[in-house]
């Protein structure tokens, strides 16, 4: 297994995924280098979330190859998932457990060394140390999402997969999340984010891919403003197809 700086952190070759007769992903080829912040743009149902879930091997592709840090995720899904953190709109947390208990549970599953110390450190980082012993059913959406970020980064993953992480967040938490993403990338880690909208926090992204009907239709490397204009143009064209 290779996971040095020259090995792509994600390498996808000819991936196809079908749900029954519906094609969710078509001929996806992608290579992501360490330290990259890549954003998948597209309308609802374009295949962005499916692609992230294929990379995490929650979904098995019908054909093609997916490697995470040099590990074939089809053959060794557990070894691949060790290197991934995943933040989605849903938090994956248990409402009857306290913030600390939630993190303790995930620390066990991810075999985090010195879990108590790491949990304290992570709770402090997301600003939840005072609420550590409260059951999360009393948490606001923003607090739950902060804890979800703590959960996803607890094991110090090399790659962070984000599926619409800004949805439903207020401005303050959105700004915090954007800060954390920049910090994460500045440490040489990789971010792959799926979003249907050009929300804030994307100005730090290096590369963009527009997905449509399960296919990457355009890859863009450039400034946020350039991407915004191209994506708006793309949406306009798609809209005109319907009317």
């Amino acid at each position, binding site marked *: 297994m290779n996971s040095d700086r020259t090995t792509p952190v994600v390498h996808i070759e000819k991936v196809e995924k079908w749900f029954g007769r519906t094609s969710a992903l078509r001929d996806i080829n992608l290579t992501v280098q360490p330290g990259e912040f890549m954003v998948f743009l597209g309308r609802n149902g374009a295949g962005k979330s499916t692609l992230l879930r294929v990379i995490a091997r929650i979904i098995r592709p019908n054909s093609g190859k997916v490697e995470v840090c040099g590990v074939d995720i089809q053959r060794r899904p557990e*070894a691949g*998932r060790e290197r991934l953190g995943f933040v989605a709109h849903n938090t994956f*947390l*248990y409402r*009857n*457990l306290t913030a600390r*208990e939630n993190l303790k549970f995930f620390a066990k599953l*991810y075999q985090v060394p010195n879990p108590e110390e790491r949990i304290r450190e992570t709770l402090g980082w997301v600003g939840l140390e005072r609420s550590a012993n409260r059951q999360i059913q009393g948490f606001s959406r923003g607090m739950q999402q902060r804890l979800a970020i703590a959960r996803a980064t607890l094991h110090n993953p090399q790659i962070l997969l984000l599926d619409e992480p800004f949805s439903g967040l207020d401005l303050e938490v959105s700004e915090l999340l954007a800060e954390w993403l920049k910090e994460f990338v500045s440490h040489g880690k990789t971010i792959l984010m799926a979003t249907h909208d050009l929300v804030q926090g994307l100005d730090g992204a290096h590369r963009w891919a527009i997905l449509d009907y399960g296919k990457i239709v355009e890859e863009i490397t450039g400034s946020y403003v350039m991407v915004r204009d191209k994506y708006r143009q793309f949406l306009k064209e798609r809209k005109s197809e319907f009317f």
Partner: protein
Amino acid sequence: MNFFSQAAAILWKDILTEFRSKDAITSMLIFGLLVILMFYFAFEPDRLEIEKFGPGLLWVTFIFAGMLGMNRAFAGERENDSLQGLKLAPISWAAIYLGKMLANLAFMLLVEAVILICFAVFFNFDLVPRLGWMLMITLLGTLGFASVGTILAAISMNTRMSDVMLPILLLPVILPLVIGAVSSTAAIFTDPPGEGLAFWLKFLVVYNIVFLTVALLLFDFVLEE
């Protein structure tokens, strides 16, 4: 982290969440006690009738109370899409099954202990001389039920009418188990124990080995999308 530590972590989490919410145990317990109470007032059976109908009554109560618990087994994982969080962890998905199955087994055994005590009190039936056998049969029968019930609860979780779907899927598969459990319980209700006891106990052991192994091997495919 080995397979059993992974399962133990999930078992710990399920016990803690159930301890806080008490959703499954409360509904199972109330249902079980109501059934025993209803039978008591409806029939007021004598000693011979208890020997005849008692095993069936007990196992019908265990199974239907257990079904309520099974329906709750994955309900907690649907909130906040927590099952995705488990699937994303670097663990074997079979460990998720084992942890959840053991949690279901523990909840059912707890409820069954209370039901058994109530059965003995209401029907004035002396369980003490046959307690060892009763515990063994209850453990084997419940283990088989939890093994099959947990995997079928995971399958029915994503169906539109999961509460209805689970009994439809589960009851035909556990029919041989129920026959084995009722027959072996009937054998210990007579004094001395009936001849068929050894056969039915072996049957329950084989049922458990087969279905536990099959469930552990198939659970990956159940969770796969």
